[in-house]
């Protein structure tokens, strides 16, 4: 069963929010994509850090 069919039925709070679909979930631990995100996030964080010092 897909995560939305399984979890949305569990309680009303859950039903009113959003859930990642199978693709979004896979991308979260896809090493190649996450390596790119790692680079992007580091740059974004460095910008915030540099604005704060």
């Amino acid at each position, binding site marked *: 069963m897909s995560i939305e069919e399984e979890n949305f039925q569990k309680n009303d709070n859950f039903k009113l929010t959003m859930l990642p679909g199978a693709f979004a979930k896979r991308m979260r631990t896809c090493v190649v994509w996450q390596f790119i995100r790692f680079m992007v996030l580091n740059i974004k964080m460095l910008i*915030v850090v540099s604005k704060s010092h």
Partner: protein
Amino acid sequence: MARLVVLGGGVAGHTAATFAAKWLGKEHEVVVVTPNSKWNWIPSNIWVGVGQMKKEEVVFELAPVYKKAGVIYKQAKAVSLNPEGKDTSDKPFVTIEYTQEGKVGESEDVEYDYLINATGPKLNFDATPGLGDGSGQMGTNTVSVCTAEHAVHASHELEKCIQKMKDGERQKILVGTGHGTCTCQGAAFEYIFNVEHELKKAGVRDMADIKWISNESFLGDFGMGGLHMKVGGYVVSSKIFAESLYAERNVEWLIGAHTSKVEEGKIEYELLDGTTGEETFDFAMLLPPFSGVGLKAYAKDGSDITESIFAPNGFMKVDANYDAGAYENWKASDWPKTYQSPAYKNIFAAGIAFAPPHLMSKPMQSPNGTPINPTPPRTGMPSGIIGKAVAHTVCDLITQGEGAHLHEASMAEMGAACVASAGKGLFTGTAAAMTVYPVVPDYDKYPGTGRDTKYTFGEVGLAGHWIKHVLHHMFLYKAKLKPGWALIPE
């Protein structure tokens, strides 16, 4: 020769002391007074609390590091300040009580020219009956991850809980805040998802009911009044972001809750609508509320002047606007910039030790008058930046004289990078990587969200976990003053 005394060797104090020692050189003295012999990288206590790291990986001995830095280290806790000296001398001093083996209980008056109070929080377990043991320590009903020792204990209790599930016994797990005025929701958020991740790894997730309880009026408030961030092309409230993660991981939530009593296996709570209820548990990690560490202050004649230096919650008053009044009048500019005590110009506070002017979240109370709202977080990055700015100020005052420029580090003008772990594992781990700018919402500049959405974002993924891991090693490296440490940003 001038002497700077730094009270507290945590994130803010350690940063302040090590930079001050580097900038002042041997001509002046830097003294650190802190009760623990070891430094703790507190964010990684979460991983100790789920058995994924050993205590030894998150702590190190302070003495050799301070020796290398030329810092005089006193393993002791500060008890009181005499900012005007005493009848026989005008020299201000701080009274300390040793905690070092062999000297326990011995007291000493340490004179100072400049003082930085970076004593962080008192973990006020006794604010909730049954959360504490009645003598200021954590009680036996719940666990905590606030110190490395607490985290080791938490991991042992979790292990027992997992074993019971393996033996076929269903378990109820409760994680969140142990009082209506707690802060640091981010730490509990990390813990609940790390526990969930570990249960999955142990193959017992189906045997657990996991529930979040917190004083936030909405999920994702985090004590910062929530935040809006760019996700997938939308600008979205952290409420949606947080609720989505809880729903995905099948974690129920109870919010707007003040935990009023803790017993073995049961808590009582009051909600924002005034109703009360009970929640049972087999394993619970509930954070205590924070207060100041309870330093006293005395005038030259020995009279008690604690109230002129410290706010009623024990945190030190600094250059903030404490008279902002109602929520509608709050401004980003209420937040302190230089962290100088208005009462004594040679005293500063850094990190959690300074008294915030007011909450960041909207103040809330139940119809019974019980305040149920998160107090403002002062996380690692702001604490480090403030510690460094204050050290800079003190060094300039020492080397350039009293007219030197006071360095500024307002939380309303700085951002914070937060990486909230949601499970550990080189290829299976995830974390919510977030940045927020500025930390304190500024509704004059950004009337809709309070923050600059160009620099406020968040996403969940393995990359966040890698960053969290890199930060663990990087900050321990920096705190140990290894080559190039000063180049690593706070």
